[in-house]
């Protein structure tokens, strides 16, 4: 069986345009607080979620919008939730980190790693029901260091739970590189706990789809949990307004605000010896350097561009599809901003 690239591309593009609309609302000040977008992980979400069916469950992290869209949740309700409206998906009470959809057995959390136990619990209920339903848990590589997630891998392993753990690995844990924060590779950890890991390029929707298909089939048939590690690049960094991305985009503007206090602290009497201070400065500069060379700046990492290239041969059909989705998202945005009907 082959993935239907047209359908997957439609899911991805819809997610992207939707999140760009969310970004605009946030920048316009219509959405308060933080905003974590999933731009850059659309291939992972589409490749996995498009294969779920009624009765399957999802445990989402703080970037759950795309998964809800692919699952078929009303985009207007999601937008209205972010606007804090009473007619939003959760009555305006949850916001983007706490999106719930009961009919889809889908729960989100802003607590890093919480998708682990939630996915395991949904899978336990599915196992109990015995109807072949599965649960999927989405989390980042930073969450791999959270105790509750590691414990959940073990729990799913010993209880043989029908769950697919999906690690969206972008190499970053908030503002620190994961490699400096993780003692071993995520896949090796899963293997160590008895769960077979599968590595895929999370920018390639077909690759994700194939791997997810096998993992979901395995769970449905009582084969137990799987661990899917999909590498990706978050185009907006950890969240909108992300300091490291701002440095990458406008190094001189952002660094000028940081430089003066840094220099003052570096030269301040009292404190570490020169060697220690130099080591500290090196660490800060290394972070800035790695930000400037960040993969987020490379458009080749955009999963949507990647998928689109394969469809270019049928330019007419592609244009029709893209125009349709653009209209659809535009209409959803317009509808979301309409005054609530009493």
């Amino acid at each position, binding site marked *: 069986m082959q993935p239907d690239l047209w359908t997957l591309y439609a899911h991805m593009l819809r997610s992207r345009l939707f999140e760009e609309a969310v970004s605009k609302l946030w920048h316009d000040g219509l959405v308060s607080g933080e905003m974590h977008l999933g731009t850059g992980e659309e291939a992972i979400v589409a490749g996995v979620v498009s294969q779920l069916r009624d009765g399957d469950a999802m445990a989402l992290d703080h970037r759950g919008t795309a998964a809800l869209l692919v699952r078929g949740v009303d985009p207007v309700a999601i937008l209205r939730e972010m606007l804090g409206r009473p007619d939003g998906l959760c009555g305006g009470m949850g916001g983007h980190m706490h999106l719930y959809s009961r009919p889809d057995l889908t729960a989100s959390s802003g607590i890093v790693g919480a998708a682990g136990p939630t996915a395991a619990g949904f899978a336990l209920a599915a196992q109990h029901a015995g109807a072949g339903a599965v649960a999927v848990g989405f989390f980042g590589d930073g969450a791999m260091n959270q105790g509750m997630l590691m414990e959940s891998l073990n729990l799913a392993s010993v209880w043989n739970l029908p769950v697919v753990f999906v690690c969206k690995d972008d190499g970053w844990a908030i503002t620190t590189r994961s490699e400096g924060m993780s003692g071993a590779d995520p896949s090796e950890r899963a293997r160590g706990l008895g769960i077979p890991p599968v590595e895929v390029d999370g920018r390639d929707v077909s690759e994700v789809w194939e791997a997810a298909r096998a993992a979901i089939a395995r769970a449905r048939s009582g084969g137990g949990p799987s661990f899917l590690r999909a590498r990706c690049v978050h185009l907006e960094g950890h969240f909108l307004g992300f300091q490291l991305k701002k440095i990458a985009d406008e190094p001189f503007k952002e660094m000028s605000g940081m430089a003066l206090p840094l220099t003052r602290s570096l030269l301040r009497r009292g404190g570490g010896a020169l060697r220690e201070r130099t*080591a500290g400065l090196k660490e800060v500069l290394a972070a800035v350097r790695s930000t400037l060379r960040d993969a987020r700046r490379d458009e080749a990492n955009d999963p949507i561009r990647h998928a689109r290239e394969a469809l270019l041969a049928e330019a007419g059909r592609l244009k029709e599809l893209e125009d349709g989705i653009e209209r659809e998202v535009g209409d959803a945005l317009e509808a979301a901003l309409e005054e609530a009907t009493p």
Partner: protein
Amino acid sequence: MRTSFFTQAVDDALAQAMGEDPDIVVFGEDVPLLRRNLLVRFGPARVRGAPISESAFLGAGVAAAMAGLRPVVELYMVDFLGVCMDALLNHAAKVETFSGGRWSAPVVVRAPCSGGYGDGGQHGQSLWGWLAHIPGLSVVVPSTPADAGGLMLAALRHDGPVVFLEPKLLSETWLEFLGSGGRKTVDYDVPADGAKGSVPDRWEPIPFGRAALRRHGGDVTIVGVGVGVHRAIEAAHALEAEGISADVLDLRTVAPLDRTAVEASVARTGRLLVVDEDYEAFGLSGELSALVLEAGLPCRYGRVCTRTTIPFARHLEDETLPNAERIRAGVRKLMG
């Protein structure tokens, strides 16, 4: 004297203490970025980033404190203590008793707290009552830059575990990081006197358990911490026009609680209104009612607190958290 922002004051007092005590170390998630000014002055051995493993690094902070370090363990938000509560509840808070008073864990847990910037109910809680409930923990909630620095210094010298909470609405860095993200299009109700103010040139510790009387009045005692203090002052100003004068008492530390200051004020006014951004049930507000009852003070009592999970929607959040309007209504009710 000079002026300082809130978090700048905490960092400055911390830097002063680190210059004097080489055993003070700082760690937590994103610390290399958030505390980069400390990193370049004290080096990576004393200022280090941690994986997203709160139960491990907070638990390690407790034991490191037992072994002689003075760790300042940073959590992203007090809400995330839920992930690692065991380290505080069953270890840090118990060491002194379990060792028969022979050992303690002088760890400082530094965490942003409270809401008012629309980040939802998992990222805007206050939780100081929940923490102060546990014997053995000190819980600090400053309301001004001067207090924030002085109390941080006291926390670093305290011989036991301290939870040091920074209201995000007062913190220039946290509000920028989590609330605005650099946007000019959002506007939060930031109490100006709490966000920026004069601070001493050289920090001195402000002792725990000593409340500050922010405003003198004779008719009613309004007690609070953090942003609640500023909301109370705002309400007290407005009440003046109605001929009502209010004491506003800033507890500064929830544990230990300055019982004497509360009793003295309530003995004069005969009316107590508690303003508490933490949850209403089984918390600071109830504790203060017990305090006046135990002291045998005749007193009319009311409270303006957070009753429910904090809604994401901004207008609902503003109604849920204590605001000046609710405080005024609460006072009027006591005057009737």
